[in-house]
């Protein structure tokens, strides 16, 4: 059951990816941007840093503040895309990865925050918080970061 669903999802994702590459200019693209508190001095984040933050590694940002990732709820489109692009894991793999981590006593997944609005609030208030949003959900309360120096509009921007 799970296998079949995973297979279907995977096929759909592949198909969608193909379609996106084909129809990039035709439809508005679904793009994720990392966000930090509006007061944060951070402007950019590398894919490596992003991966390490969201695999719960202890990592300090500017000013020595520990960087803490906050996820979107699992099963959400943003979370699926984020895991696939940043961690290189589909949802099943991601689930298994975290179970494995927990069994080994290594790390826990970053906390998931239930709603986009709350996520923006949490990221804004929690020192060193790093989250991600679909570009459509962005507002002025948080700061969107460039990834590996690339803006979300740039063609080489990875989180899409």
């Amino acid at each position: 059951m799970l296998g079949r669903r995973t297979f279907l999802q995977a096929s759909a994702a592949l198909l969608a990816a193909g379609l996106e590459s084909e129809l990039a200019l035709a439809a508005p693209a679904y793009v994720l941007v990392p966000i930090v508190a509006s007061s944060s001095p951070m402007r950019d984040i590398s894919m490596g840093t992003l991966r390490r933050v969201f695999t719960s590694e202890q990592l300090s940002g500017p000013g020595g503040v520990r960087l803490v990732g906050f996820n979107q709820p699992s099963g959400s489109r943003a979370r699926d895309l984020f895991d696939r692009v940043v961690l290189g894991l589909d949802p099943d793999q991601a689930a298994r990865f975290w179970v494995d981590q927990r069994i080994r006593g290594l790390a826990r997944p970053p906390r998931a925050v239930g709603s986009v609005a709350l996520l923006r609030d949490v990221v804004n208030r929690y020192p060193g918080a790093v989250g991600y949003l679909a570009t459509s959900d962005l507002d002025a309360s948080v700061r969107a970061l460039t990834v590996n120096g690339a803006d979300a509009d740039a063609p080489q921007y990875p989180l899409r």
Partner: protein
Amino acid sequence: MHGSTSPALLAGSPVAELLPSGARMQVRLTLLMLLLVGLLTALSSLLVRGVFSSITASLTNDLRWKAQRGVAELSYSADFAVLTANEPLLLEAAKHYTADADFLYVRFRNAQGQALLERGSGAGLPAAEELPEAVVESSLAFSSWAPVVIEGLRVGDVTLALSKQRLQAGTQLYRRMLVLGLLGASAALAVALWFVRSYVVPILRVTERTALELQRTAKIALASAEAKSQFLANMSHEIRTPMNGVLGMLQLAQQTDLSAVQRRYLDIMSTSARSLLKVVNDILNFSKLNAGGYQLRPEPCSPRELIEETVTLFAQRAAEKGLQLSAELAASVPDAVLLDADRFRQILGNLVGNALKFTDRGSVKVSVFAGPAGPHLASSSAPALEVYVDDTGPGIPESEQSRLFQAFSQVDGSSRRAHEGTGLGLAICKQLVELMGGAIGYRQQEAGGSRFYFALPLNGCAPPQLGAAAPGQRLALPRNDRPVLLVDDNEVNQIVAVELLESLGLRVDVASSGQDAVEAVQSGDYALVLMDCQMPGMDGYEATREIRRQLQGRKLPIVAFTAHALAEERDKVQQAGMDDYLTKPIELEQLAAVLSRQLGSAPRSASPAPAASRARSQPPLLDAMAAELLQPGLRRPPKAVEAFLRQTPEELTLLRKAAAERRHDEVGRIAHKLKGSAGSLGALQLARLCEGLQHATKDPSAEGLGELVVALGHSYQQLSAALRELQQAASERGAP
């Protein structure tokens, strides 16, 4: 009724001690009620307390757990709400708690300690924050707090308090129940006390009063019965004293020369006087038995002799009525038993006397059996001596049988009754038999006559010693040169006693008081003192004690002489130091028997014996025989004497022959036989010679055997001459 024992009701504890008084009872009942109510109250309060404490404990645990889990859960579920100070989210997180019945207070604070949300009343809660998630108990609530932490960063805290209202309500209910219980208990106590006071105590008072009344009534009744008894005893005693004079004088008068008419009158008088004496004795006996102070004096005696004596005693009366009186003893009856012979004679005499009285023709038969108890002594399975007295009289109607053994009742209770008597005889018999541990009864015979029977426990013993008291030797008085001192204040008694003593061949000195007696004993040498017990001034007991004190151990037989026929008198005289006992009215035979006993056993005085007394050491030729033959109404049939005189010469011939042939066994056998017949006739000298001969045959050398045989023959010659002489004298008197 001297020294009678009062029943326990009178002697012992009065009713007040047997029964607690009303007041004491009330106190006890009150205490009991208090105790009961107190116990019940304590028990129920313990029960309630147990229930409540278990409920309280579980409720407390519940509240503690809820507080602890609550803050833990809230700190997790509301973390982002706390971080973002999002009130709707906080409310959403806390809504399950605020809706709880035990909820008192919840507060969320941010990391800066600013309250983000507060619900409920936090007043009175402890301010100091203990360890996280520890439960703090205050008077109002169980409260706990926990930090809200996101990824190791404390972003705020949450505090939750749960009200103790439910617990307090439980405690309040418990207190209310206790108070109610106490009120109820007090009410119950009050009701109980009221009940005790209003119902139980009056009943107790009535019971107490009734018991006291009963006791008083019983005391009065017993005292009156005792007074009557005492009166009877006193009267009987008062009558006995003058009777003494009457009977004594009659006896003396009978010994004088009289015309046939005079003799008949005197005989009738004597019989009447004896009947009267018997009535008086009956009454005395009965009062004594009734008072329960009767002392039995069991002694070894022979049933055969007792039966023979009684039958002999009644033989004349039976003959006068033309009745056949016989006795039969079963082989199983032992030679000797332990019983009170006087009482046995009294019982048997009464039954035989009754049988003779009520039987007009036919026979009266006494049968004696021994062995395991018959059907009549149901209460014991021990061997019993059973005596039956059967007659051929009219018998007793069944309706009257139940009254047989009751006091003061004769079967024909009407004034025209045909038979005299006090009606006490059978009642006395019954009491005596029961006192001896036996049973008495009556059964109608099929042929119509009556059968009275009694059974006594059979206590075997060694055969009684046939001594000086044996009948036939009663009047055998050793000759005594020293006078007898008679002490009595009553002149009639003095005359009677002096005459009787002199008729026995004794010299008599008289003292009229205890003091005189003491002085007389000091100055004179007396063989014996006959002491009246009741005297004005120094009485007989005291005088005896004084004499004993003065004699300092020197032997002097003192015989009490008293009108009291009571058994306890015997103890009293013994305690006073007297050797024997005689009741008034004195009868010649009794007197002779006692004197014989006392003088016969009296040791010789320490002074050198005169020639006469040395001669006495040789036994008299004839002892009992002479006196016996001299008395009217022969005990021993002259036939026995005749047989003795006929047979003895043959025996002596055989004896001489055996001695000549030195057949010692044969000599012993004949000597033994001769000793028996001589002894039974009272031929003491001959009997003693026979005994010596018997002894000599056991000595192998048989020394002096021949001399003894010769002496024996000589003694017999003298004896036979004396016997013939006496026989002739008796026959002359028997046919005047």
